[in-house]
């Protein structure tokens, strides 16, 4: 039985909303695919493009950023800056050959446990269809 492709997703979750949302999905026994590796960040505005590109370079098949809905940000403007930053990064990554479908930004509040599991499930399915991403080999080619 061929090993079925399991996409590896790196998820940056803002501590105040999305992380709490994912927590709530857990406490209310809502299941979602385990392909996602969650990294807790203080705010979606903390996520530096370096983190995203480094994740892809180290072999991630997809990167998900989850933060508070605009207006709910614990630091009032973190997700506003993040929104602009990722609006510019998304087409740029696509331009470099990292399909924009591999990079998703979602606003998930602390009470949206259900929605969180739907986001992860749909993202995992999309990536399974897309197939693995061939990261550039780190060692020298010379």
């Amino acid at each position, binding site marked *: 039985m061929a090993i079925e492709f399991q996409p590896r997703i790196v998820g940056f979750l803002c501590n105040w909303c999305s992380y709490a949302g994912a927590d709530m999905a857990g406490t209310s026994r809502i299941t979602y695919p385990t392909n996602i590796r969650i990294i807790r960040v203080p705010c979606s505005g903390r996520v530096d493009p370096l983190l995203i590109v480094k994740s892809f370079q180290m072999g991630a098949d997809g990167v998900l950023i989850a933060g508070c809905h605009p207006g709910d940000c614990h630091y009032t403007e973190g997700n506003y800056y993040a929104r602009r930053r990722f609006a510019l990064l998304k087409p740029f990554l696509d331009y470099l050959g990292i399909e924009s479908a591999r990079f998703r930004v979602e606003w998930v509040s602390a009470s949206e446990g259900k929605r969180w599991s739907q986001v992860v499930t749909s993202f995992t399915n999309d990536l399974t269809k897309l197939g693995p991403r061939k990261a550039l080999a*780190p*060692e*020298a080619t*010379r």
Partner: protein
Amino acid sequence: MSKYISKKDLNSWLNKVRDNRRLVAPTKVDDLILFKEISRVEDIVSDYVNTDLSPKEFLFPPTEVLFSIEKKNGGVELTPARVEKETVIFGMRPCDAKGVVALDKPFLEDPTDPLYKEHRDKTALVGISCLKACAECFCSSMGSGPDDPSGFDIMLTEVKDGYLVQVLTEKGKALLPDSTLSESGEAKPKAAEVATVPAKDVNVKLRQNFEDPYWNRLADRCIHCNMCSYVCPTCYCFDIRDYPNKGKTDRVRSWESCQSAGFTKIAGGHDPRANKGTRMRQRFAHKLLYFPEQFGVSHCIGCGRCVKSCPVNIDIREIIQDVQKLGAKGE
């Protein structure tokens, strides 16, 4: 009478070399001419004065694993890297052969660097003498010459539809046995006319005028990229660091340049050469003073690559002339 090989025989010889060794030769990459591993002998270019980058990367690669570190049954096991393949670098110019001779000095001096030594032992250098020179060549002023064979295993000189052959070392003889060569009475063509840059006692002048503000003025213009050290066939400074690699750890050696900002910064932040002028002086002091006095061989081989590629035209020929005039009365 001298040995001769026709172009046809040379091509079949190159095909034979490519079959059982790694053949590296100049080929066109977009609008650059670079040494690359050759799969089709037809890709080798012949109408070039010199390659844009030197063959240094095949003896002292930009990035190389020195050894790998593996945690095994409680202890640690070190496995030094080995050079498996034999290589023939074809189409080198005499100045690059001098570059390799200069590169040998620090690496082969006791205690020898075994990895470099293995690269060197397993690589044959086959050169073609220069019939044309570019405006920036000044090899004859730096102890080399357009038809100087020293440093090569084999040197070819192009004549009508073939090459005169000088086999200089045992390695060359093994690669190209006399049986495949014929005789020719063809006269050796005149070597290329090369510009001269008088460089007599430039090291003495440099030492005498070491604190001259000339270097700060020169550094005004320099943007301190690492290009001159990377395109230079004889620059050999390196950096070493460990990298995780699928469960093991690799100790990796990579090119480094005295022009990069943190080159001499030590833990705790002290940096004896933070000032740009001192970094500029370090490059030319090492090239024209320290290395020649330490190893007795010029560290600049006059290939002109740094002159061509420097974005702000820091020209070592101009600097050699300026340094000789430093401290002159009435300057």
